C-alpha cells in the first residue's frame, strides 16, 4: 500500500527530525539550567559580597550575648564596726511562670518537698502580679542544705523551678535600725523609669534590688556598685557555650556610720513599750549618734517584697511602725522651745538675763487668759528661773514682746521649720509659724493673740525630733550649726580609699557668748535643781537639759488637764532635750515620747540612760519607763 510506504518513509525522516527536535528542546532546557544557576550565582554574590557586613553583624549578634554580672552591694557598719546591713549567700527556689503549666499544682508539689508557708505563697502571688512571665521569681528563700538536697532529687518533676545561689541582704539588728538603715526591695516599674531618666538603668541590668528607704535609699549610688559584663557565646537555645570576655563587677562602697549601734540599742530599749523618737548628735561634727523611731519594723520582711498580710498589719497598726517619727513626725516642741525663745529675747534685746517679771499664774491678752501650769504663778521670775521652773507666763510675755516674725526669723537660724539636710530621704520640714506662713497657708492675716502660745512651743509650732536635736546641738556648740549626717565615711573596697563626710558648719549664728552662757547655765540648773533634776540625780557628769510637754488636744481654758481622764492617744507628748558634758559637749539629743505625759517623767529618764551609756559606758538594767 502506498500509504504504508509513505508512512515508512515519513517515519525514517521523522526519526531524524524527532532527534533534532529533541536536541533543540534539550538545548532550551540547557539555557534554562544555565540561567537559573546564574540566578543562584547572582544571589550568592549579593549575599556573600554586598551583604556580607550586614549578615556578619547578624551572625555576631546571634551568637554573642552580653550578660550582666550584678555587683555585691556595699555593707553598712556602725562607728565601731558592728554590722548593720550585710549580704549572705543562700539558696533560693525560683519559678519562671511561663515555663510552668500549672502554677498552683507546681507550688503544691514543691510544698510537699520543702516547707512553703502561706506567707511565701501570698508573697509569690503578689510578685507574680508585678513581674513579667519570663522572669524568675523566688518562692522560697534561705533553703537549708537538707531542703536543697530534697529539691535536687525531685527536680526532674518540677520543670520551671530552679534552685539558685543568691546573695541576700540582711539586717541583723532588725527593727532597731529600720528607720535609719532602711531596706532594699525588688526594683519596681516606677524605679525603672526613674533609673532610665537618670541614665543609670544600664548599671541595673542584672540587679533585682534597689534601696527603698533609709540609708539604703539615700546612698544607693555608693552602695550599689558597678555591674560587670560577661560576653558569652550562646547557642540558638540561649544557653551559654563559652565566655568570650569578662569585665568584673565592682562591688559597692561600704558605709561606716557615725551611729553607735549599742547607743542606739540602749535608746531603743529605753522606750520600753512607748512610742516615740530620739535623735542624738555629736554637736562638734553634726554626726548622728543615735536615730530612733519606735516602734520600728523588721526591714528583712521587705527585702523580697513583703507579703500582703504583714504589709496590712504594719500599715494599719495604730502604732504606725512605718512612720519615721524622728525624720517625718512633727510635734509641737512644748517647753523645750523655751531655751531658744530665751535666746531670741536676749538676741533682740527684749530681755536681759537679770530682768524679772512678775508671774501671777496667767497672762492676759485681749481679754483672753493664758494660764501657767502653776496655779497662783511663780512670783518674780527672771530668765534663769523661767527655764528652771519652766514658767509659761515669762514666755507668753516674751513672745508678745518679740512678735511672731522676729521669733520666726530667729528660729530659722536654728533650723526650725526647714529641712536639716540629713542624709536620709523623706524628711519633713515641720511648721515654723510666721505671718507670711499663715498668709501662704490659710490666706489669713496673723493675729497677735496667736503669737502668745508660740512662745511656749505650742500653737502652730510643729517640728521633727531631728530638728529639735539639731537645734540643741547648735546651742551646745555655741551657735555653730552643723548639717546632721549619719554616714561618717564611704569606703571604696577596691582602692580602700575613704571618703569622709566632712563636718561642714552650715552657719555660725553669731550669738553673743554671754547670751549663750545665760541660757546654758539655766539648762544646767534644770538638770540639777529644776524639772530635770529627778532624772539626773547623782549624774557623775554635768549635763544641760530642758523638759517639755506638748498638748495633743487643745484644753479649754477653764478646765484643767487631768491625765487619767484623757484617752491614751490624746495624752500629752513628753519631750526632753539635753546635752553633756557641759564643759565640752560630746552629745546633744532630743527625745519625744508620745502620749506619755510630763517630759520630766517620761522623756528625761530616757535621755539619762542614753547619756550614761554614751559618757560612762554604763548599760541600763531596765527600760526607763515611768513609774
Amino acid at each position, binding site marked *: 500500500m502506498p500509504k504504508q510506504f509513505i508512512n515508512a518513509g515519513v517515519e525514517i525522516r521523522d526519526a531524524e527530525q524527532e532527534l533534532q527536535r*529533541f536536541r533543540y528542546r*534539550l538545548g532550551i532546557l540547557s539555557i534554562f*539550567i544555565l540561567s537559573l544557576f546564574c540566578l543562584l*550565582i547572582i544571589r550568592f554574590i549579593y549575599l556573600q559580597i554586598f551583604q556580607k557586613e550586614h549578615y556578619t553583624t*547578624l*551572625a555576631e549578634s*546571634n*551568637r554573642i550575648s552580653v550578660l550582666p554580672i550584678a555587683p555585691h552591694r556595699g555593707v553598712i557598719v556602725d562607728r565601731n564596726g558592728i554590722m548593720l546591713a550585710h549580704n549572705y549567700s543562700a539558696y533560693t527556689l525560683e519559678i519562671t511562670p511561663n515555663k510552668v503549666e500549672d502554677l498552683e499544682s507546681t507550688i503544691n508539689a514543691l510544698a510537699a518537698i520543702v516547707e512553703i508557708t502561706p506567707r511565701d505563697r501570698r508573697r509569690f502571688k503578689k510578685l507574680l502580679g508585678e513581674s513579667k512571665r519570663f522572669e524568675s521569681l523566688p518562692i522560697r528563700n534561705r533553703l537549708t542544705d537538707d531542703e536543697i538536697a530534697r529539691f535536687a532529687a525531685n527536680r526532674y518533676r518540677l520543670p520551671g523551678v530552679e534552685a539558685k545561689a543568691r546573695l541576700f541582704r540582711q539586717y541583723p539588728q532588725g527593727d532597731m535600725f529600720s528607720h535609719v538603715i532602711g531596706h532594699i526591695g525588688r526594683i519596681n516599674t516606677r524605679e525603672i523609669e526613674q533609673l532610665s531618666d537618670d541614665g543609670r538603668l544600664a548599671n541595673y541590668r542584672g540587679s533585682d534590688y534597689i534601696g527603698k528607704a533609709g540609708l539604703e535609699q539615700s546612698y544607693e549610688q555608693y552602695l550599689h556598685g558597678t555591674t560587670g559584663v560577661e560576653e558569652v557565646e550562646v547557642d540558638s537555645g540561649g544557653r551559654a557555650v563559652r565566655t568570650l570576655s569578662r569585665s568584673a563587677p565592682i562591688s559597692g562602697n561600704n558605709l561606716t556610720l557615725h551611729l553607735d549601734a549599742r547607743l542606739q540599742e540602749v535608746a531603743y530599749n529605753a522606750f520600753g513599750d512607748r512610742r516615740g523618737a530620739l535623735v542624738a548628735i555629736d554637736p562638734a561634727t553634726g554626726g548622728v549618734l543615735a536615730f530612733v523611731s519606735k516602734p520600728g519594723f523588721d526591714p528583712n520582711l521587705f527585702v523580697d517584697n513583703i507579703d500582703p498580710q504583714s504589709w496590712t498589719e504594719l500599715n494599719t497598726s495604730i502604732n504606725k511602725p512605718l512612720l519615721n517619727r524622728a525624720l517625718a513626725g512633727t510635734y509641737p516642741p512644748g517647753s523645750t522651745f523655751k531655751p531658744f525663745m530665751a535666746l531670741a529675747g536676749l538676741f533682740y534685746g527684749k530681755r536681759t538675763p537679770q530682768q524679772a517679771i512678775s508671774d501671777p499664774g496667767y497672762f492676759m491678752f485681749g481679754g483672753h487668759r493664758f494660764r501657767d501650769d502653776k496655779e497662783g504663778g511663780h512670783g518674780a521670775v527672771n530668765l534663769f528661773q523661767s527655764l528652771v521652773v519652766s514658767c509659761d507666763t515669762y514666755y507668753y510675755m516674751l513672745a508678745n514682746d518679740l512678735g511672731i516674725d522676729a521669733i520666726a526669723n530667729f528660729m530659722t537660724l536654728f533650723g526650725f521649720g526647714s529641712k536639716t539636710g540629713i542624709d536620709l530621704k523623706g524628711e519633713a520640714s515641720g511648721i515654723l509659724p510666721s505671718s507670711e506662713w499663715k498668709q501662704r497657708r490659710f490666706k489669713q492675716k496673723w493675729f497677735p493673740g496667736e503669737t502668745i502660745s508660740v512662745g511656749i512651743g505650742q500653737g502652730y509650732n510643729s517640728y521633727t525630733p531631728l530638728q529639735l536635736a539639731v537645734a540643741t546641738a547648735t546651742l551646745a556648740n555655741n551657735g555653730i550649726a552643723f548639717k546632721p549626717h549619719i554616714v561618717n565615711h564611704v569606703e571604696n573596697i577596691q582602692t580602700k580609699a575613704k571618703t569622709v563626710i566632712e563636718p561642714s558648719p552650715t552657719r555660725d549664728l553669731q550669738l553673743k557668748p554671754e547670751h549663750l552662757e545665760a541660757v546654758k547655765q539655766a539648762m544646767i540648773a534644770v538638770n540639777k535643781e529644776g524639772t530635770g533634776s529627778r532624772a539626773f540625780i547623782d549624774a557623775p557628769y554635768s549635763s544641760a537639759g530642758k523638759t517639755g510637754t506638748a498638748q495633743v488636744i487643745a484644753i479649754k481654758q477653764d478646765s484643767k488637764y487631768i491625765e487619767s481622764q484623757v484617752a491614751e492617744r490624746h495624752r500629752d507628748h513628753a519631750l526632753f532635750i539635753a546635752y553633756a558634758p557641759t564643759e565640752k559637749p560630746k552629745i546633744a539629743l532630743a527625745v519625744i515620747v508620745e502620749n506619755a505625759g510630763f517630759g520630766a517623767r517620761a522623756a528625761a529618764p530616757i535621755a539619762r540612760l542614753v547619756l550614761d551609756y554614751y559618757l560612762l559606758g554604763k548599760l541600763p538594767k531596765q527600760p526607763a519607763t515611768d513609774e
Partner: protein
Amino acid sequence: MSPPLFQRILQYLARHLDRGLIIGLIMLMATGLIVLTSASNGNYMRVLSQLLNMTVAFAVMWGFANIPPHYLMRLALPLFMIACGLLLGVAVAGDVVNGARRWLHLGVTRIQPSELMKIALPLMLAWYFNRHEASLNTRNYITAALILLFPVLLIARQPDLGTALLIMASGCYVIFLAGLSWRIIAGLAISGVASLPFLWSKMHNYQQQRILTLLDPSEDPLGSGYHTIQSTIAVGSGGILGKGWMNGTQTHLDFIPERTTDFIFAVFAEEFGLFVNLILITLFLFLIARALVITSEATTLFNRLIAGAITMTFFTYVFVNMGMVSGILPVVGVPLPLISYGGTSLVSICLGFGILMSIHSHKRLPNY
C-alpha cells in the same frame, strides 16, 4: 601483553559505568562528607553511616547501570500502578505525622509512597510516549497530563506541596521533551498564571505562610521565617572566603536547623565562602552537562525521555535546595543531592545516574 587478570575483571565490572559521571559523583560526595563532618559537629558515626549510604548507593547505581533500559520499560506500568495504589492507600488509611498524611503502614515498615512516585511517574510517561511514538497527537498529551495530574493531586492533598510540585516538574520535563507544541505550552503558561489566585485560595495556611515568609522572612522570625533567616545569615556571613571548615558560628551554635540534611548547603556556604561555592556549582554543572550529553545521544524515545527527566530532576533538586537555603525559594523539604545526609535521597539519585549510565552504555547494543 594483555592486562593482568585483576585489571581485566575491573574493566569487565566497570564496562557499563561512565567515567565522567563517576568522577563528578565522587567529587561531590567527597565534598558532602567534608561538609557533613563539620555539620554533624564531629559526630563521626553520622559520617560513617553516610559513607555506608554511599556504598549502598554505588552498588545500586552499578546494578542499574547493568540493566538494559528496555527492562526498565517493562517495569514502568506496574511500578506506576503500585505507586498509585499506595498513594490511594495513604489517602484512605495513612498515618498522620505533623498534620500531614504522608506515610503508609505496611505491617513491619512505614513507607512514603510519594518517594516511589518520583521514579515511577517519569518512567510511566516515558513508556507512554514511547508506546505512541509513531502517532503522537494532542490526545496523547492530554492523556499524559492526566497520568501526571493524578498522583500529583493525591500528593498535594496529603498535603505535601513541595513533593507534588517536584514530581509535577519531572513529569512536565518529560512532556516538554516529548515535543508538546509551543502553542499549548504558551496557553498553559497563561492559564497557569491566571489560576494562581485560585490555587492560593486552595492552599493550606502553612503553605501560604511559607510563601509569604519568603517574601518577608522577618515577618515571622521565630516561626516559618526562622529557617530562611538563619540560613541566609549563614550564607551571607560566609563572605568570599568563608569562616573556615568547622568554624561556622551559625552551624556550630545550632542556629541552622536541619543542618546535616536539607540545610547542609548553609553550612557549606558559611564555612567555605563564595569561591568554593562557585566551584561546587561548577561541579554540579559538570555533572549535569555530562548527563545532558548522554541524554542527547540516547537512541530511543523512552531512553531520551527518561535520561532527560533524570537530568532535569537532578538539576531541579540542586536549584530548589540552593534557592531555598539562600532565601529565594520557599522552604520545601528537598535535600541537596549528593551532599545532604540521608540514604534515601542518595540511593535514588545514584539509581538515576545508574539508569543514565545504562542508557549510555547500551545504546550501541541491540535493545530489543
